[in-house]
């Protein structure tokens, strides 16, 4: 399990291009969307500046984008010999899921540095930062499992790409990443409540900015979702080799 996380770190060390190109999109969200909406004050976020409110949302979004296409690796590796090792499928899936988390953390550093440069006030409490690491790992692991499950069902890279594209935006807009749940129409509120991304954002917002949230609930939801994701993804993984 840890082996796959180590591999991910080694890959990031060898080739940082992806790290930079992937930083462009969240930067645009913060710079253009964030700055504009701060100016027109369209979204009521109480005492908190909109950019501060947005930064944890964008952090969660970029982790989601990394995770949702992670299943592609599994499709590439379907016959790569890894599945013939005595390592159980659940351990492989768990390793892959948290490896995605490692990559998301590398990304998170870039986004948080940019946020600070834009004047977002982030917490200085090291315990809270530790919490951020845990939440980003869990959130990314869940969506990576979702991606691997889709990979196991879709069986081809093109189909996974299509499905991934189709669900990322609904997951993103159907969460509290950009705006408070209170602003949503009722049906969207329902979506947001079953969307693990909302719980990830809620926790990150609480930890980074200090906006009141329900941390134990967020944590519990993410742990359970990840566990369910690992079990589901492991059970469909065998389909890939057939």
């Amino acid at each position: 399990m840890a082996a796959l996380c180590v591999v991910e770190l080694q890959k990031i060390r060898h080739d940082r291009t992806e790290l930079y190109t992937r930083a462009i999109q969240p930067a645009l969200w913060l710079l253009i969307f964030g700055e504009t909406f701060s100016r027109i004050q369209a979204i009521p976020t109480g005492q908190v500046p909109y950019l501060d409110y947005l930064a944890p949302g964008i952090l969660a979004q970029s982790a989601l984008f990394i995770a949702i296409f992670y299943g592609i690796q599994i499709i590439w590796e379907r016959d790569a010999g890894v599945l013939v090792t005595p390592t159980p499928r659940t351990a492989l899936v768990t390793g892959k899921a948290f490896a995605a988390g490692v990559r998301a953390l590398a990304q998170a550093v870039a986004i948080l540095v940019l946020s600070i440069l834009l004047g977002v006030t982030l917490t200085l409490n090291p315990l809270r930062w530790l919490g951020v690491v845990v939440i980003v790992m869990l959130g990314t692991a869940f969506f990576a499992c979702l991606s691997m499950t889709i990979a196991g069902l879709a069986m081809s890279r093109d189909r996974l790409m299509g499905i991934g594209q189709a669900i990322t935006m609904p997951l993103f807009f159907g969460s509290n990443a950009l705006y408070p749940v209170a602003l949503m129409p009722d049906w969207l509120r329902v979506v947001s409540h079953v969307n693990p991304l909302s719980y990830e954002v809620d926790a990150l917002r609480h930890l980074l900015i200090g906006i009141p949230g329900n941390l134990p609930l967020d944590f519990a939801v993410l742990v359970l979702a990840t566990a369910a994701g690992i079990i589901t993804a492991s059970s469909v993984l065998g389909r890939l080799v057939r």
Partner: protein
Amino acid sequence: MSSEKATAKPTSEYAVACRDLRHAFGGAVAVDGVDLAVAEGEIFGLLGPNGAGKTTTIRLITTLLPARPGMVEVFGLDAARHQMAVRRSIGYLPQQLSADAALTGRENVELFARLFDVPRSERRERVGEVLSAVGLENAAERRAQTYSGGMIRRLELAQALVSTPRLLILDEPTIGLDPVARDGVWERIQEVRRTTGMTVLVTTHHMDEADLHCNRIALMHRGRIRALGTPSELKSGLESGATLEEVFRAYTGDQLDEPADGFRDARRTRRTASRLG
């Protein structure tokens, strides 16, 4: 099931024993009743054209595809019942790319050492050993994307060897390689076998390779084994330099028509080949 048991022989002397091995993908029968016994220490070649069922047979032996109990035994262990123990005894070189281009040669082999639970204290030494066994000790710190086709295949061989398997399974080890690189891969395989005495099960569609390197050969076509024997037994009565097609026709009288799954097959082999560019 009971009739299978009645005909079952003690198989402990065999590295691999398949009895009435079958597998179908939907309606397409890929393996249609294969009986096979690979003795410990021999190099056994499974030969046949694309779509003959070689890879499916291998996937059943490696537990990648589920075999029914009684169909496959590896060193006397039933592959359906003792999946993990069987996997532990096998080193597998898949037809498809199994090295990660973004990692160095050493990192690739280390990953497999970890996945096979090679103890931490032995890991570094073991990884170094197999890298030099395949002649990559000087390229170990370079990323695999800078390797030539033959080097990648040898790296993958190192990955398969790092767990010190008793049985090495090679699926088209020389696919897409030029003659020099092919010889290079085979030299390493032969050397490893000489020093460790491990059993090797290899698929290929090059008759010349099988002739040169295998102790025994099974000719496979349309999911069945059509002939079995030493290379000289199979070729006796034929002109020397006979091609696989000629040997096939001699033994089966069968037409080597295109399999129905031609496109998928082509895509798979080309993908394997294109990585070498």
